[in-house]
């Protein structure tokens, strides 16, 4: 249908998520570039769904925000009703259901990353059709096509947190370099038993900082 395309912001972000660090989870994404406007830039596409679960969105901002808001609400309900925090799987299942059953109305590619003590750090990818893929690391968005090689060559089993952060940052720098629709700052969130720690890296200093400060 042509109608749903009209008035939609065409935007792209590139997202990398990675799983299996010794202590948990890193996921990161680069700032999105919206073709018509840049007003959303400082907000960034990572959205904490629960304290230790994050979703990364690419595609239509309106669509993915609507989906993420619904899941966030449902997960809050879950936490209150069953007196236990939802797992990453629960979040992923909810995202998948919405993306799958509304596939003809949504333009949403999502990555769900989270940490819980039982399952450790996990990454799920939900591409356009609404299928659910458990992955070691997940990449998405326009810039991702440029870094399939980088990620495949540089990802290793059992990286430390620092190695994970560097892997993600390195991948995003490549994507920014080669993808005309990617650019700006690198936002990252590290999810571990300690909680969610946000990082920010600026092009001003060659993406070396300010980091977590």
């Amino acid at each position, binding site marked *: 249908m042509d109608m749903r395309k009209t008035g939609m912001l065409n935007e792209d972000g590139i997202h990398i998520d990675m*799983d*299996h*660090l*010794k202590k948990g*989870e890193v996921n990161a994404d680069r700032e999105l570039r919206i073709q018509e406007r840049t007003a959303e830039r400082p907000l960034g596409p990572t959205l904490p769904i629960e304290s230790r679960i994050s979703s990364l969105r690419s595609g239509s901002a309106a669509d993915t925000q609507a989906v993420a808001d619904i899941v966030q609400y449902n997960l809050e309900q879950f936490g209150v009703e069953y007196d236990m925090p939802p797992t990453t799987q*629960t979040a992923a299942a909810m995202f998948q259901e919405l993306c799958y059953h509304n596939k003809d109305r949504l333009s949403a590619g999502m990555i769900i990353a989270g940490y819980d*003590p039982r399952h450790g750090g996990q990454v799920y990818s939900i591409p356009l059709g609404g299928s659910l893929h458990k992955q070691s690391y997940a990449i998405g968005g326009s810039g991702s096509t440029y870094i399939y090689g980088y990620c495949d060559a540089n990802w290793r089993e059992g990286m430390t947190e620092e190695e994970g952060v560097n892997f993600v940052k390195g991948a995003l720098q490549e994507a920014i370099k080669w993808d005309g629709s990617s650019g700006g700052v690198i936002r990252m969130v590290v999810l571990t038993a300690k909680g969610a720690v946000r990082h920010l890296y600026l092009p001003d200093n060659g993406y070396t900082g300010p980091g977590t400060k």
Partner: protein
Amino acid sequence: MVRTGYDLSNSVFSPDGRNFQVEYATKAVENGGTAIGIRCKDGVVLAVEKIITSKLLKPGTNKRIATVDKHVGVVSSGLVPDGRHFVSRARDEASSWRRFIKSPIPTSIIASRLGSYVQMYTLYSSVRPFGVTTIIGGWDSEEELPVDGQVGSGPKMGAGGKDESLRSGGPGLYMIEPSGLYWGYYGAATGKGRQVAKGELEKLNLQNGTLSLLEGVKEAARIIYVAHDDSKDKDFELEMTWISGKDGPTKGRHEEVPAKLREEAEKAAKKALEGEDEEDDSSKGDKMEE
């Protein structure tokens, strides 16, 4: 009991704070065949004494223990149709959980949801409470489960940052009464023979977590036989189901105990009973006629 009129409606308390309709429902349960559940270290056993009400009924049919989800079973004592409705609700709860969360419902949660459901039938004058006490047995996977339908598997070495000291899953056993009251139990009994059965269950020291599932099957059969009152009911069938972990005999599923094993357990149960009788007889100094 002096009839005061406070027993006519469900939503009306008596002056001393009782809901008579719920108490009458409990009476209905007390007339049902004995049902028990045993929480063993590696699984759960459910058993029921199915009184044969007519010789015209085909043996082994009209099952009284129901499967609610792959890993959850339910047995009830009291009014059979009420039990059936309860099971149907339980199945709805389990499947709606699967639709929404895409994983098996934890035993504790299905017990809690059904507890709330039963309790609602004590609040309104337009309904009567459930005439059943229900035992719910389940096994929650101790392993990590995939989201239903998921593909892919993540790192070969598994996810990082896991709290290895955490123990998840295992056997679960709950009993819901007509009031909606429910607790988790090591061993649960309801129906006619509940007093005897509870006494026997206590002797098993289930809280130690040492009884194995196979021993549990033997004990469950024995307890149903012990609790059976020959003077009141002539014939009964023993119906038994079990649920083990992934490495156990049922691979995490709620299934009927295989006929061969059940028959063995029944044989042992009968033998144990005869043994008891002999002891009783010898103490009286009488000889038993064969």
